[in-house]
């Protein structure tokens, strides 16, 4: 009887116990008022038009500007939306370059975590480039994060293979060069890696040691070779199809410098779609140097000398013309690839361009798009260039420190 009374007391105690329901697995039966949870509020972006959508990273805004190609250059044409990008909403993460899947379903953004002025404090290490970077996979449909891969510090360039299955992510790790130099270490210890990432799963398949501070990476047409611009006055040639992916480093000029004291500072690359020649943009020497794939040697006779630091350019499909933006004047050099001569120059500075970073062509090759970083304090700009006229027909203000532009084709 005493036991029965105890059980009753226990039951009553359970009944009278105050407090909220246990939020563990034993969730009670619930009735829902909204059949579509978590759908109120928020911001959605309309799908891109039939011509596709431009993506421009804003490095100091942690955002991506979206501009539909339809109506390009017409009055009122501009930013369709600006969407946040990054792993979280508090710190500046420095979205750098982008790559777009051929199917148009996804795009990839390198998170550099290297943002000057992006945060300081007694024990915060952010902004010094010591934090690992990430490669983000984002849905082109709703711009939400799908997956990410943790990579080395200071991600530089990111590109995707033609089949969309593989990403190549370099690490422009100048800090490593400085750290090793300070300790008196050898140049080999300054070498940073290129991550090769499975684009579907976002797992890093390989990490290939390429050179000191590798930045731009481009593939040969058969995708058996990767060319990488190296701060150490070199181009790294990576045999992707060979066992162990051996790397050959080629100095960009006779009397070239070293990782610690570069004389040229290779930064960007543009590969000819017809000859496979690799045109190397070197910041310090303001030269565009040509590596010929057949010999894997530089041909100094084909070097183009510019009046400013050359950046990321674009070839026409026929391989005859290379549009190469360069700084100081903030202009685009139109280069005849056969003769290595500048046939004309398109000025961007009068249109408000400061610190041009990249130039790309629209699919019909009637227009060029120049991304200009600006002063890294106010907004940067995107300029639409009528290539036939050689004039800027449209200027759009973007976020802070816009960096790269790429085109998302088709309907995600």
């Amino acid at each position: 009887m005493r036991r029965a009374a105890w059980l009753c007391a226990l039951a009553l105690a359970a009944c009278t116990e105050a407090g909220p329901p246990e939020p563990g697995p034993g969730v009670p039966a619930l009735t829902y008022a909204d059949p579509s949870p978590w759908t109120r509020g928020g911001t959605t972006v309309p799908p891109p038009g039939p011509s596709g959508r431009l993506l421009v990273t804003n490095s100091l805004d942690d955002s991506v500007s979206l501009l539909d190609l339809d109506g390009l250059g017409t009055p009122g044409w501009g930013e369709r939306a600006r969407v946040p990008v990054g792993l979280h909403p508090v710190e500046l993460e420095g979205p750098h370059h982008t790559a777009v899947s051929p199917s148009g379903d996804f795009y990839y953004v390198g998170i550099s975590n290297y943002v000057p002025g992006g945060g300081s404090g007694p024990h915060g290490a952010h902004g010094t480039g010591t934090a690992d970077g990430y490669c983000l996979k984002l849905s082109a449909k709703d711009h939400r994060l799908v997956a990410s891969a943790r990579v080395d510090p200071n991600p530089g360039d990111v590109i995707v293979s033609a089949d969309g299955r593989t990403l190549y992510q370099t690490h422009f790790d100048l800090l490593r060069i400085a750290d090793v130099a300070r300790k008196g270490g050898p140049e080999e210890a300054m070498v940073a890696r290129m991550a090769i990432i499975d684009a579907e799963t976002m797992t890093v398949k390989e990490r290939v040691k390429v050179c000191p501070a590798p930045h731009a990476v481009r593939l040969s047409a058969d995708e058996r070779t990767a060319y990488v611009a190296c701060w150490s006055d070199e181009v790294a040639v990576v045999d992707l199809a060979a066992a162990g992916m051996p790397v050959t480093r080629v100095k960009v000029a006779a009397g070239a410098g070293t990782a610690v004291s570069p004389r040229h500072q290779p930064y960007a690359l543009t590969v000819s779609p017809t000859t496979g020649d690799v045109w190397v943009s070197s910041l310090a020497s303001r030269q565009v140097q040509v590596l010929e794939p057949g010999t894997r040697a530089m041909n100094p006779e084909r070097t183009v000398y510019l009046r400013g630091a050359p950046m990321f350019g674009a070839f026409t499909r026929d391989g005859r013309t290379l549009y190469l933006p360069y700084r100081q004047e903030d202009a685009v050099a139109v280069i005849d690839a056969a003769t290595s001569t500048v046939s004309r120059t398109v000025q961007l500075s009068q249109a408000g361009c400061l610190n041009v970073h990249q130039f790309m062509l629209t699919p019909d090759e009637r227009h060029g798009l120049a991304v200009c970083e600006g002063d890294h304090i106010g907004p940067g700009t995107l300029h639409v260039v009528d290539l036939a006229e050689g004039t800027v027909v449209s200027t759009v203000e973007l976020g802070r420190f816009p960096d790269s532009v790429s085109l998302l084709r088709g309907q995600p």
Partner: protein
Amino acid sequence: MRGLCAGVAALLVGVLAGCGGGDEPRAAADYGEALFQDARLSPSEYNPFSCATCHVTTPAAPAGRIDSGHTLYNVAARPSWWGGNETRLLDAVNFCYVNFMRGVTKLEADEPRSRALYEYLSRISPDAQAPALPFTVVKDIQDVPRGDATRGEAVYRAACQGCHGATHTGEGRLTNQASVLPEVTRDYDEAFPGIPHAQVVIEKVRHGPFFGVGGNMPLYGTEALSDADLGALLTYLGL
């Protein structure tokens, strides 16, 4: 004996059935409200925070309360959160859930608890056109002018005491993991040698666990806590 057991069993069934209406389903929003106020929303045994720790649900916070987080009144109707850096409500919630509440995995949209929480947030969001609220992170930490100690005491009570308890003793603090102020600053000489104690406190307040700071204290943007109030707080803490 068998009759007694049967009688007890019948009594038990009757009593439990009387608890909360037996098997009657309850409104998800009501359950979500309970979750909102319960630290056990997070499965982590080390989590002391509930949503209500940092957010009120009224249009404005009552006098004497300064929260790191905005009011969640109308939260479900806003076009963005976290200063425009989150454009989906569940992502904004999960940022708190994972970073401050030590939730190991994010809440899924269709999970019953998640849905219940959403229904509660939706219920306290009557204005369909509610604007986004600003959230300004102080990225580069700098010293702030000191203020009035009396105001600083009020700021401490409104913003700090709920988690840290009384100064010097920590009495009434939310969790033993919360440091006792300002005594914790004595440890800073070892942890952050050469850095003024006040600067470490400023960074903790402004950066929370981010920018390499660590811990899981939520950060205060300038809308939540002005530099003037922060300066007053430092005076009150003797820093």
